[in-house]
């Protein structure tokens, strides 16, 4: 028994070393821009770089648009599948898992081919069209996370009773979804939203191949020509990921306690 405990400690300590050392090293590296002293100069340079500001804002807007489109597509689908079309569940689930099977680079390659300037639907011809295509692509990438989160939320409430009750009060289905279902699965939707945000914010492959100036390609560009700024950016990206996952746990906790309260 004692031996196995020592082994367990050893595993955890070695794991902690492997996972913490790169973070410590990156942080230390990011402070070394000024010779002979530690400073936050690299962060200052990055944060005041207009290219950073525009790329970062761009990615945040894109993430929000992606989350909104994702909710608009996923919530009604999960609702109707749960309520009236349970036969469709396996098919819908299969489709939502496809983005985990087909690598992102293949999906975007498909876009480049299907929506190029000489196609029937030349989305890539205009900046706005490409932005729309990129958003839809991100909705597809985040589909597994968004759908699973919303579906879990939908299963934890009594969709049938809520719907009948709302109908008896004369509500039509857009009203039911908006005023009854949505508030009840708020924390599930938030979980999906944070996961989507974490996926979209630093995404590189789609943005780079569709030639949009988002945060991911900006990171890559700085990495190719600067020494200390990339380390600062990596720390910023890590904090964003950490924040998303932290908020995800808060939302998940809210979901669990809401379910607990019902019982």
């Amino acid at each position, binding site marked *: 028994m004692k031996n196995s405990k020592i082994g367990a400690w050893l595993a955890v300590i070695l794991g902690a070393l492997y996972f913490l050392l790169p973070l410590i090293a990156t942080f230390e*590296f990011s402070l070394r821009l000024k010779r002979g002293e530690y400073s936050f100069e690299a962060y200052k340079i990055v944060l005041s770089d207009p290219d950073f500001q525009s790329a970062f804002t761009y990615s945040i807007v894109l993430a929000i648009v992606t989350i909104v489109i994702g909710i608009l*597509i996923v919530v009604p689908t999960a609702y109707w599948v749960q309520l009236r079309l349970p036969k469709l569940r396996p098919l819908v689930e299969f489709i939502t898992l496809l983005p985990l099977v087909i*690598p992102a680079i293949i999906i975007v390659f498909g876009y480049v081919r299907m929506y190029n300037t000489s196609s029937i639907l030349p989305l890539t011809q205009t900046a706005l069209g490409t932005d729309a295509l990129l958003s839809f692509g991100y909705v597809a990438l985040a589909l597994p996370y968004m759908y699973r989160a919303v579906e879990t939320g939908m299963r934890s409430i009594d969709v049938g009773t809520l719907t009948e009750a709302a109908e008896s009060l004369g509500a039509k289905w857009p009203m039911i979804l908006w005023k009854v279902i949505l508030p009840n699965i708020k924390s599930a939707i938030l979980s999906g939203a944070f996961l989507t945000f974490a996926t979209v914010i630093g995404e590189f492959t789609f943005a780079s191949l569709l030639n949009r100036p988002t945060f991911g390609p900006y990171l890559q560009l700085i*990495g190719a020509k600067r020494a200390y700024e990339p380390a600062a950016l990596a720390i910023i990206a890590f904090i964003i990921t950490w924040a998303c996952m932290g908020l995800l746990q808060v939302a998940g906790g809210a979901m669990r306690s809401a379910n607990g309260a019902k019982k």
Partner: protein
Amino acid sequence: MQSATFIEDQQVTTASTLQNKTSKAMNRDLVAWLGVSPFFIFAALFLILPTFLLLVGAFQDPSGNFTLQNIANLFRSDIIKSFTLSLEISATSALGGALFGFILAYAAVNGGLPSWIRPTLMTFSGVASNFAGVPLAFAFIATLGRTGLVTAALVKIFDFNIYNAGFNLLDFWGLTLTYLYFQIPLMVLILTPAIDGLKKEWREASLTLGSSTFQHWRYVILPILWPSIAGSTLLLFANAFGAVATAYALTNSSLNIVPILLFAQIRGDVLHDPNLGYALALGMVAITGVSNVLYIMLRARAERWMK
């Protein structure tokens, strides 16, 4: 929340409206189908059709006639080399991730450690498995690059330069070591529920029957866990096989793995043959597809024990 309680109060009145309901049934089905149609249109336009048309292109010549030439061209030596390198890196990082992920998860669940270790590990795994791509490459350059902290510390303390010893972050082992940063946490996240499924009674039962720790592992734990372990390893494999950003930012396309080659092909037709590019995509989908199908089959097997 307020609306929910309000509606629960109204449940009594729903019974009276039940008769009304049947007459509207047809209408409702139509509404339901209309409600799910955006999803299917979206999936067709931005997921299924683009991929399908791409894969069709793998079987066409430039003028659109059916041919198997592109598939045959995949066996060109440079492309075979790319696939071999990709398979090796993905397999090594998947096996390494599976091994270390399993050890970590098992230690946290059954290792008798303080109770805060497990939630900390799970939260951190959630973050680290999402911390892939370009920033991860930066982190490893700052750690194990030529001027990285760990590289410098090893020189200072042990007078040992890993670069003189043949290590290169931009090489096979460097990329594999970097991939492990998201592979190990992913394994921890997938495997922990399976390890949770191991019942205490089984350990007691084997102890009562006089089994050694080795026998308990050999005849109880591994036979139960192997479908989960093997399945998760395949998932890790597919995960590494499709990854682009980390490798691209780290090696700047000097390491010719398949996703990097495909990236260059989409950018500027480096193969000078668009249809060969589609065949390359088909090859990638075939490999990730097979790994995922096997994963699903193994997961179904594993779930027998999870009840």
